[in-house]
């Protein structure tokens, strides 16, 4: 299981802004271990889905060039305070994480 996602979602007028931070190593597969000099296997989030009250509002596909502990922000219309925001990711090693937050 991946670590929980930190989510801050705020609605201002008709626009809901979501900011999310995902603790994840995002190993590119190109780095070497400082001690053993062995390549560290690639381990990175490949897919991210964001839902508002069960409806997908954004999907992201990522490569290993997204920074460690990825941060993403995006906005959509039609949300109101109290609605549910759900973010789910999957990585190349089969790990995943899902976190829900309330739109404020």
């Amino acid at each position: 299981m991946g670590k929980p996602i930190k989510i801050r979602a705020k609605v201002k007028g008709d626009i809901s802004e979501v900011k999310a931070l995902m603790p994840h190593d995002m190993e590119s597969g190109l780095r070497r271990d400082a001690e053993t000099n062995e390549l560290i296997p690639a381990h990175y989030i490949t897919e991210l889905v964001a839902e508002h009250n069960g409806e997908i509002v954004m999907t992201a596909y990522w490569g290993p060039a997204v920074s460690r502990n990825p941060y993403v922000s995006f906005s959509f219309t039609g949300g109101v305070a109290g609605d549910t925001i759900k973010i789910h990711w999957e990585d190349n090693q089969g790990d995943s994480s899902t976190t829900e937050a309330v739109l404020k």
Partner: protein
Amino acid sequence: MHRRDFLWLLSCAGSAGLLTGCMRGTVRGDPYEASPFGNVRLLHFTDCHAQLLPIYFREPNVNIGIAGAAGRPPHLVGRHLLEYIGAATGSSDAHAFTYLDFAAAAEQFGKVGGFAHLKTLIDSQRDEAGKGNSLLLDGGDTWQGSATALWTRGRDMVYACNLLGVDIMTGHWEFTYRDDEVLQNIERFDGEFIAQNVRVTEDALFDGVAAYDEDSGHAFKPYTIREVGGRRVAVIGQAFPYTPIANPRRFIPDWTFGIRDDDMQELVDRVRENEKVDAVIVLSHNGMDVDVKMASRVNGIDAILGGHTHDGVPHPLIIENAGGKTLVTNAGSNGKFLAVLDLDIGNGKVNDYRYRLLPVFANLLPADSAMQAYIDDVRRPYLDKLQEPLAVAESLLYRRGNFNGTFDQVICDALREVRGADISLSPGFRWGTSVLPGDTITMERVMDQTAMTYPETYVRDMSGAEIKTILESVADNLFHTDPYLQQGGDMVRVGGLNFSCDPTASMDYRIADLTLDDGRTLDAGKKYKVAGWATTGAESPGEPVWEVLAEYLRAKKTIRVDKLNTPVLKNVAGNAGLADYSGALE
């Protein structure tokens, strides 16, 4: 020397008057007095680098401008600059603005700056403007540069600025203290600390780190509105955009910087729309060439009062942009100058302005007694340490200049000798005072060159290729044709190493002909023992550089600089930012 004697000296020196050409309506006799003008007076000093007492500061003879910056201020040195300001050789202006005949002129005109003298000048300028009609702006690099600032973690300067009456400041070297110390000093500061271009990182915001505005992420208040002379003036802060690159990020991990000129434009538009202001001023630590470019891209700023690059530029540059014109200034360093921008503003616009960059000649301005008492108090616990005599200078010692300075050569020589290295590297800082020939080099003067929070030295093996990469990288930060890609420092100083530099070339093609002092060619694949200090990454293991330098000076007793490791320069002969160069020109 009494003030009257000094005025006499000024007339004897053949000067046509202080600040010839940029000071109209001067009452002859007092060079600081001016006829009334406008309704708002902005006083600006910058980059004082914590010099509480009067000092000597030699302006550069190498300050090369590349591409669009060639041949215009601040890239004019020596006679080119004299011609530009219309000052006579040997005049007080010539001494204030140029390096010409520095040692002799310094003997003649005395020291410059000092907060007690600056205080007297500021008070008289504010009195002249009338109560409530002026603002005092500090462009930053105020809390660092002296031993006492380091030892009090910038506090001595915060209280000195409170006594001086600073209304608003922004920063750069302020951020070389730990973030919690920065915030504590801002608490102690009676004025406002502003910066539109410093944000709390997203990670830190998630962790609950405090921000001025959590939604925008501004770490500090971005701008302030002040009522001055019955008018509304907006002042926007622009901290040094590359602080976490040029200085250690580890002290301020939660803050992120950048030029952010798109954010600047949005802010200027918003301020103009919502705040009913008569003028928009940017208090900037971008560096002059960056300010010039920003002024060409952002509309609606009336004046950018700039610092960082330590350029004593007597007249503002007037930069055109899609929205009109923007004045760009740079007000020198080390407390040597006070800029006075008089504005005639109203109905949302600037009708007229007058700018003067006043040299702060300590002999001409009696010390303010309250400020002097404060300075004496602050220094008292440290006096023995500060006044320790280490050696006597036989040569003029200075730092400022694109390439090596004599004081940096001494640092490089000390690093090589004390740490037993083939090659030494010393950063191209622009702060650091000058020592006249015959004067004693005290610990205080050593600290003027070295007092900072990451002074640790290192000795490590580097390949010839790595050394070249460092030189190329720093040269690119100095000579890139796009000012937004410059960082405003000077070239890294080297000891034991010689090279050629073509400032007009591109990255990886500027540096060539690397040889050791004994004439051997630097081998790209071979390892050399390199000593240096001030690493911005992890903390280095060695003793602070001032200890190395002090040990070297005590042993030498007298210091003469006969050989400067300064590069052979290519393709810049005739550049107005280059004169009396001690190396070869090709």
